[in-house]
């Protein structure tokens, strides 16, 4: 059976998570009418979990601790938190419709792999159980700031643009 494109692209572009950080693919039960790996891919190591999800043409990426495996934190927020700066470090982009659907997904996954590569040691350290419990209050406070201050300037974005 042909490997779903999302799984295939994650394995290709995030191979370094498997090779350097000990992640492997674990099954997940969200895909109720699609083969595993076409809409959700979850990677897990001895320290944390990483999830790729495909929704409306976009691929996002989040992480969770092993003790709260479904309590996902998006890495766009986490990288901003790790940098200690109250500003958006990077943002998701609209799918490139000049490409076919498989190439669109490939472009997004490759971009995420490139953006996140410098952050993985910090991300994994944060989601290590003992560290996360110490940081959760600080992270929650950051997210309140994110929702109030950081995104404030973006409220002027024309939704028809």
């Amino acid at each position, binding site marked *: 059976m042909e490997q779903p494109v999302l799984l295939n692209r994650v394995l290709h572009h995030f191979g370094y998570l498997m090779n350097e950080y000990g992640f492997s693919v674990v099954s997940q039960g969200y895909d109720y009418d699609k083969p595993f790996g076409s809409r959700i891919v979850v990677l897990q190591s001895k320290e944390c979990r990483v999830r790729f999800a495909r929704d*409306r043409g976009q691929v996002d990426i989040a992480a969770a601790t092993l003790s709260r495996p479904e309590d996902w934190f998006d890495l766009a927020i986490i990288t901003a938190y790790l940098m200690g700066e109250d500003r958006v470090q990077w943002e998701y982009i609209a799918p490139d419709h*000049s490409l076919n659907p498989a190439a669109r997904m490939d472009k997004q996954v490759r971009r995420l792999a490139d953006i996140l590569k410098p952050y993985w040691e910090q991300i994994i350290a944060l989601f290590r159980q003992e560290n996360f419990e110490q940081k959760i209050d600080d992270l929650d406070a950051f997210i*309140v700031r994110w*929702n109030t201050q950081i*995104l404030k300037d973006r409220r002027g974005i024309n939704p*028809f*643009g």
Partner: protein
Amino acid sequence: MAVGYNSDPFSLPYDSECGCLQAPGYAQARARGIGDTPAGKSDQGGNTASPNPDPNKKSDKDASIAPSDLLKKYNRGANPKSGVTILGNYPANKVKAGSITGGANWLDIDPDVWDSWSPATQRAVNKAFLDEAMLRGDRFLIEDPRGVLPGRDLEWELNYMRLFGFVRDSPNGGELINPNMSQ
């Protein structure tokens, strides 16, 4: 001072203090131009979902179909009788809908179908999903109030809902409310 919308589709004044449009109410906004136009075409306000030429337009076989009909045909998360609509991204919106007694309405289009549509059709269907829920007077819940992500569909949905006066009930709130309308 906050930046206003570059083009206001309904000619509603933008209030930089509250960061929202001063919508007199959704029904009035609808009467002023929001309509169920074919997905790839401009609505009365001159807005299409994408201002750019659509390279896939010829291959979008659904572009001439009304977005509400596309919703009926393809939205597997439709539950209009629930009175609750979930905004957000998969799979958290599915999980949240499943956690509500009686279920909830959420947007769930097969990813392969979605990918076959042009950006204009995609946006029109997403817009129709929100429009129909507003017309029904649904309660709007955000799937994950933890953080709105720049560039994701939830951010677009919240910006769109703000056109009609809907704002979060608190900075980290999990519900959208419209102070201009009785809840």
